[in-house]
């Protein structure tokens, strides 16, 4: 069961899209999973043959539980990018659970909840850990919530002290070995609409509470003159058919993606007490759902896609988020979040960082304002731009440079 967000503890397998014996390829949808937030299509991240399905539809299992066994042909195991070898290639390597690594193998490591849960599972904790248990109050509380026995957890802190991260790792790692029978059900059947709404609130509460508890936020705000951007956008859209028109939201998103190249300390994850920058720019787009709540799937490689493609992908992402057909990779590897509340009329939004990310960018509405420049007063379209960032990783100086870089990008929209 992949982790589809820092707040996810378990998921319900709704249906399998594959059967034992099926050949699968990296990126194929293999299952449909229900989280507290949405139904998610689970992708597979390597080629192979499905050997066994370990979890029955309708069962809710903890994050980290193997869902199926996959047999990787030897040639593919050695060269993942090579063409697929015949399924019967002898000798077959040992079967292994479906890995839960993020798509496209970005240079940056995945969030902690995405890591394969196996390494520590079979390892016995050292005697000293069992004898003199040291754990923070938070770790003890989380352990109680997750039903983790602290005496079985290996502490990574000084003197073997157990942290919250250690407990979460242990919770993920306690999934059964691939050879055992399917995991027992925690609860039957996926939730209904009322449960979905309550589950959504619980999930948001968990993630945002953790964020406010652990991340020392700092906030910056500025206003950006959008005269050039909107003029360019208007001219561009005038010559585009309605189906290919661009929204200012896509332009803003693109500007953020490009500006992130200049400030890599805002793009990545805080894992195990250290910042892991990401070379890939996967922007989590906060999308309000019509039935309430929100979800922030990632728009991948936003800095490397031309604006028309970014717009098409944004449109597709919003449609699928609201239709409940997001993919697992889209919910697991955002490197920063962008929220835009301009449509609702607010001038600025000061966001809450989604852990393990380290920053969230906000845009408010575009409104005409008096604007003084070069000794002249003018009326211009202006947007409120904000940043909430993790002070463990960056400071106001770098954050300010980032906002200035976004502003600069928006003054040359034709280059975006």
């Amino acid at each position, binding site marked *: 069961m992949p982790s589809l967000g820092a707040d996810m503890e378990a998921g319900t397998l709704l249906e399998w899209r594959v059967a034992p014996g099926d050949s699968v390829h990296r990126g194929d949808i293999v299952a449909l999973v229900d989280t507290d937030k949405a139904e998610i299509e689970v992708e597979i991240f390597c080629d192979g043959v499905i050997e066994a399905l370990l979890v029955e539809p309708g069962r809710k299992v903890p994050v980290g539980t193997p869902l199926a066994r996959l047999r990787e042909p030897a040639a593919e195991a050695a060269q993942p990018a090579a063409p697929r070898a015949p399924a019967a290639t002898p000798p077959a390597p040992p079967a292994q659970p479906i890995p839960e690594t993020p798509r496209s193998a970005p240079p940056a490591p995945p969030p902690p909840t995405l890591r394969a849960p196996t390494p520590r599972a079979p390892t016995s904790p050292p005697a000293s850990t069992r004898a003199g248990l040291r754990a923070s109050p938070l770790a003890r509380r989380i352990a109680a919530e997750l039903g983790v026995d602290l005496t079985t957890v290996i502490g990574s802190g000084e003197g073997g002290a157990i942290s919250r991260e250690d407990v979460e790792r242990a919770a993920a790692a306690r999934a059964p070995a691939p050879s055992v029978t399917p995991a027992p059900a925690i609860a039957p059947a996926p939730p209904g609409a009322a449960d979905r709404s309550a589950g959504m609130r619980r999930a948001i509460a968990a993630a945002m509470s953790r964020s406010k508890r652990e991340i020392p936020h700092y906030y910056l705000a500025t206003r950006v003159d959008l005269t050039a951007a909107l003029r360019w956008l208007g001219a561009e859209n005038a010559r585009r058919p309605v*189906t290919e028109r661009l929204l200012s939201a896509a332009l803003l998103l693109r500007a953020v993606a490009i500006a992130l190249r200049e400030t890599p300390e805002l793009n990545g994850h805080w894992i195990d007490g250290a910042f892991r920058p990401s070379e890939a720019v996967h922007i989590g787009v906060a999308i309000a759902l019509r039935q309430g709540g929100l979800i922030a799937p990632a728009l991948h490689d936003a800095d490397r896609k031309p604006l028309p493609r970014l717009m098409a992908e944004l449109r597709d992402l919003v449609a699928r988020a609201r239709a409940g057909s997001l993919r697992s990779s889209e919910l697991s590897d955002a490197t920063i979040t962008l929220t835009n509340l301009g449509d609702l009329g607010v001038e600025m939004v000061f966001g809450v960082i989604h852990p393990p990310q380290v920053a969230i960018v906000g845009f408010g509405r575009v409104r005409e304002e008096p604007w003084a420049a070069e000794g002249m007063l003018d009326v211009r379209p202006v947007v409120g731009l904000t940043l909430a960032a993790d002070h463990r990783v960056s400071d106001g100086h770098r954050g300010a440079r980032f906002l200035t870089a976004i502003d600069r990008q928006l003054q040359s929209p034709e280059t975006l």
Partner: protein
Amino acid sequence: MTHDEARRVIERVLARIAPEADLGGLDPRADLRETLDLDSMDFLNFVVGVHADTGLDVPESDYPKLATLAGCIAYLTAGERSPGGARERA
């Protein structure tokens, strides 16, 4: 296009975007975006939907004329378009 045909088109397109909305009880003079909680992506999808169902290619400069149900109906029945504005599919 008649008034009733225009209304049916608009309701059909809006139903795809806001399936939970009670479109039958929609005040013709109410702001559609506010009443139905449509964001800019929803509104673009509305314009695209109108195009798909009628062939009308509504220019951005005409978007304000589609602010209400009454405005949409007037626009689709061809009374409120900008000169050289909406292009009909051949």
